[in-house]
């Protein structure tokens, strides 16, 4: 518990005032190494079974800090399953079994000593369908900080709520209705509310499972901008069916097919010169 708190506080303090010094970080650490960002998460030999069905086999994937990693692939290939491995949401599914190692900052998150609750506070998640709680907008965002006891005063809580809503690009639209139900917002606003809710806990990684699939192009564009913005402070992994979106927002792309990771690399490279013909087929098929 003590560890958790110091950890969260440590991470947050710089973040609140971080907006500009982001570029500096990239220069500092990675100047020589061909702009390789440091490793944030790594999965090795991950197999996932639903009962007797194997949904994923032998997935090795490295996720780097402050990058957007896009997961693409045909429906049913296991993208959501993989994403849920990363914050152990698969634990809640009856009969789901995960093998292999998934590390966050070098620590295996499937280790018995790891506290799932703490882990999920470090790895936030945004779902395909906006799922605001039937509470006020304010309470939606304050939910996470409250359950984790991140703040001791009402002022501090207000501040977190405001910064989260600002970062999610929602504050201007809801400033006067913070105490109205979050379910009364439009779909796109709800999705940004869910993003704000995830940010409020100060996660290090944000997982997004088709966050724009229920949204119109304008709302989608807003969220894409937002993702690009958030990249400065967070590591983001996004599942998408939209090739253009993957190309636009991500730095790395992983192509899944039938439960295996077919290809993984720089987004530009994957989209311009895919090495595997399955990747090529999928991408060109979509582009038409």
């Amino acid at each position, binding site marked *: 518990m003590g560890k958790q708190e110091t950890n969260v506080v440590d991470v947050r303090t710089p973040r609140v005032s971080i907006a500009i010094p982001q570029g500096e970080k990239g220069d500092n650490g990675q100047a020589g190494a061909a702009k390789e960002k440091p490793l944030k998460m790594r999965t090795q030999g991950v197999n996932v079974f639903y009962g007797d069905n194997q949904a994923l086999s032998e997935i090795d994937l490295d996720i780097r800090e402050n990058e957007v990693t896009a997961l693409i692939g045909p429906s049913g290939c296991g993208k959501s399953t993989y994403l849920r491995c990363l914050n152990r949401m698969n634990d809640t599914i009856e009969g789901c079994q995960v093998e292999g190692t998934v590390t966050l900052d070098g620590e295996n998150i499937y280790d018995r000593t790891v506290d799932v609750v703490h882990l*999920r506070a470090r790895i936030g998640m945004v779902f395909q369908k906006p799922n605001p709680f039937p509470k006020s907008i304010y309470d939606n965002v304050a*939910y996470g900080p409250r*359950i984790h006891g991140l703040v001791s005063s009402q002022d501090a809580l207000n501040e977190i709520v405001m910064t989260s809503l600002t970062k999610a690009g929602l504050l201007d639209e809801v400033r006067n209705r913070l105490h109205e139900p979050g379910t009364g917002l439009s779909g796109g606003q709800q999705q940004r509310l869910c993003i704000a809710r995830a940010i409020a806990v100060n996660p290090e990684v944000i997982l997004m499972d088709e966050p724009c699939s229920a949204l119109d192009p304008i709302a989608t564009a807003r969220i894409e901008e937002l993702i690009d913005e958030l990249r400065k402070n967070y590591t983001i992994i996004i599942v998408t069916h939209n090739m253009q979106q993957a190309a636009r927002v991500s730095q790395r792309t992983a192509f899944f097919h039938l439960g295996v990771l077919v290809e993984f690399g720089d987004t530009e490279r994957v989209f311009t010169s895919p090495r595997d013909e399955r990747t090529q087929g999928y991408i060109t098929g979509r582009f038409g």
Partner: protein
Amino acid sequence: MQFFVLAVTLVVLTGIGFFFGRSHALSSVSGRARNLHSLPDYYGWYLALWCGLPSFGLFLLWVLAEPYLIDVLVINQMSAVLPDKWAGSSDLILNLVQSLAAGHTVPGEATPALQEAADHYNALKKTSFAGLAAAMASLVAAGLAWGLRQITPGLRARNQVEKVLRWLLVASATIAVLTTIGIILSLLFETIRFFQLTPFWDFLFGLSWSPQTSIRTDQVGSSGEFGAIPLFTGTLLVTFIAMAVAVPIGLMSAIYMADYASPKIRNIAKPMLEVLAGIPTVVYGFFAALTVGPFLRDVGMATGLEVSSESALAAGGVMGIMIIPFISSLSDDIIAAVPQSLRDGSLALGATRSETVRSVVLPAALPGVISACLLGVSRAIGETMIVVMAAGLAAKLTANPLESVTTVTVQIVTLLVGDQEFDSAKTLAAFALGLVLFAVTLVLNLVALRVVQKFREQYD
């Protein structure tokens, strides 16, 4: 018996009509059913309805009107021959005549005039039955002939049958609604009669309930006091105890089943809980009276508390157990209806399961859960058997759960058990209590249903 034979004959004839109509329709297109407008069965139904419905209607009319007609005829015939002392008491005479006609002996009164009337009565009944049978037979025949003439390949038998079915359904619904209205009206009228004998405010706010009234004017005895407050408080006390047992246990088991239990356990536990709902309340009643009541009294003795062997606690506690499945089953459905995505959202933020239940699932399900509890309350208020057996009869104004109390339902039962004069204040009081009970549960149910509806809309 005769009527039974008549009814069976009618059903058989209708069945024959069905096959007749079917084969007639088929033969009219020489067996090629595709050339018929409707499926052959519909022609069968069409003819069967023509055969059966008119004479069934006649039958109903007859059954309703016949006794009245015969009575009038008998009385008219007798009024000429009867001595004056009978004048004006036609009900009594009719009773005598009817029992004579049925072959019972009538003490001392079997005068020739009465005997004659009885014979006349029997003769009339016979004629009437023969007439009915003849009329029905001819209606069946006429319906058959008419229906057969109508059946042509182009006849829209399906639409016609559909129309008749619709009216049959409307009739059933009307009967259901009318009976309900009838019951309410009779409650209302008897209650009004009661308030002519006992002032309304004395009933609603009186503190003393002792409904013993003298049956004859020369009897010594109290004139009865009908202050219903002790009954209301007793009902409230028992209901409160029942809900104090049922709500926490029911709700928590609902939460367990909806959010914690694996599907396997849920599939076993839920039906098991619902078995509780199938136990007849009288069984709960003697469980409360013979096991729980004495047990509580013994515990009381051991701890120096004074517990009467019929106590509000025993009755309320057992009633609570009876209501558990009611609340848990409804709440379970409602909690399970809270979308999984909300739970996922909360868990993904790092909330534990119980935090998720407490802060997301329960608030979302709250309206539904409240209305489940309200429905439980209205059951508790209306529950009779358990309190009759275990709560006692003394209308005490007390809030002590260890004493015996009485409830509205118990008093209705005791008011109406045994020989009663129908229009005494004592009997009529039961109607007033019944009306109060009805009004309270009606309001509770309406509110609960309304809330559930709101809740449904929220997630549909």
